[in-house]
């Protein structure tokens, strides 16, 4: 059965993909037309952070309820989040090439934070694959998931605010501020965020159902 929010996801993403290119945007120095990346890059990161948060919530749920279903969902959400990191990185690199003149810089706490987030989740999957017993794996993975998420949160959210960063939204660089995001852009940005988050939920929904069915089949 096709649910309404899946249709909404398709419509919103199609709308923002097209209208993101056409919408009137403010002409800012250095940024110029690259400001349109706000409609693609930022919502994709939002979807990734959303999925990783989802994963942590279910990790906590697993620890309190001790059910395997939460663990499966937590694992699938982490996979979906990592999947969204790829387009997020690509769009970010493209944008950086045209505004900063380089694909990647190690100077920036936000970029480093993303690299570390990816490493953390790769470590999470390696940890999962190295334990055979299902319940034991679920519990240990949940513990690592929670701990790693908090450290990542510190890295991405708190450290960039204390050090200088070139990334928009830090140190006076244009981003979400009241000067940049005018009403025309809001009409694209907010639907884009909702659309990409819904899409990530859809992917998670399919993956989750498949994983639960596979689990049931293996148990028989």
């Amino acid at each position, binding site marked *: 059965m096709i649910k309404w929010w899946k249709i909404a996801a398709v419509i919103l993403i199609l709308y923002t993909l097209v209208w993101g290119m056409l919408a009137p945007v403010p002409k800012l120095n250095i940024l110029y037309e690259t400001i349109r990346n706000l409609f693609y890059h930022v919502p994709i990161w939002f979807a990734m952070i959303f999925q990783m948060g989802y994963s942590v919530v279910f990790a906590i749920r697993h620890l309190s309820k001790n059910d395997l279903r939460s663990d499966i969902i937590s694992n699938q959400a982490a996979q979906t989040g990592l999947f969204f990191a790829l387009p997020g990185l690509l769009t970010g690199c493209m944008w950086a090439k045209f505004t900063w003149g380089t694909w990647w810089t190690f100077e920036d706490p936000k970029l480093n934070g993303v690299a570390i987030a990816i490493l953390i989740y790769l470590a999470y999957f390696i940890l999962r694959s190295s*334990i055979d017993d299902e319940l034991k794996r679920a519990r240990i993975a949940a513990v690592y998931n929670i*701990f790693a998420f908090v450290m990542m949160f510190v890295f991405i959210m708190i450290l960039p605010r204390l050090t200088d960063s070139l990334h928009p939204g830090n140190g006076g660089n244009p981003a979400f501020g009241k000067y940049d995001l005018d009403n025309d852009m809001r009409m694209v940005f907010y639907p884009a965020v909702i659309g990409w988050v819904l899409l990530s939920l859809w992917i998670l929904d399919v993956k989750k159902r498949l994983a639960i069915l596979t689990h049931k089949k293996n148990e028989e």
Partner: protein
Amino acid sequence: MNTQLLSQLIKKEFLLEFRQKSTLAGILVYIVATVFISALCFKKVIQPAVWNALFWVIFMFITVNVSSKSFMQETKGKGLYNYLYYNARTFILSKIIYNMLLMAALSMLTFFFYSWFVGSMVQDFGMFLLALLFSSSAFSGVLSLMSAIASKANNNISLMAILSFPVLMPLLLVSVKLSKHAIDGLAWSVSYKYLLILIMLNIVVVALATLLFNYLWKE
């Protein structure tokens, strides 16, 4: 939680460590050898940034190596005994505090040998030692939990490194920044916020480790 029990557990860790002198001696040789190799390779380090980076990389590898064994000696029988007699919070806290003390001592030793062989560039010693102290305590908090996780996952040593390096990174970057300030001899008013972050991270790490260890423990 029982403070008497806690101090007994910490004492037990020290007793075990000193009874088995080979591991402690092994760590010392490891430190001296690593520092000596880097002194030979780099000959003379001129840039403060390079000096700093090299020091922290050595420090990170030493801490991961030292703490990786903190749960590996817990055999199945011992684990069951501990599980019956102590509660999880006391047990992990004893491990963390013991690791903190050990790591603080080892980091001082590393710093001593490093400044001897490679040469010292630090201008503000007080700040540098504070950075060293707080980062080694935060490191030991993270690594105690990671060691517990790795020990549950078939005691895989490479797994320990894989799990802990990305998680240590935020800590490491703050410590590198703070110690760079100490090397350059910047005023305390510039660097106090990094010290504050380090202390805050200490609290977060220890709180999380004590909370989460409870779930790791039950089989």
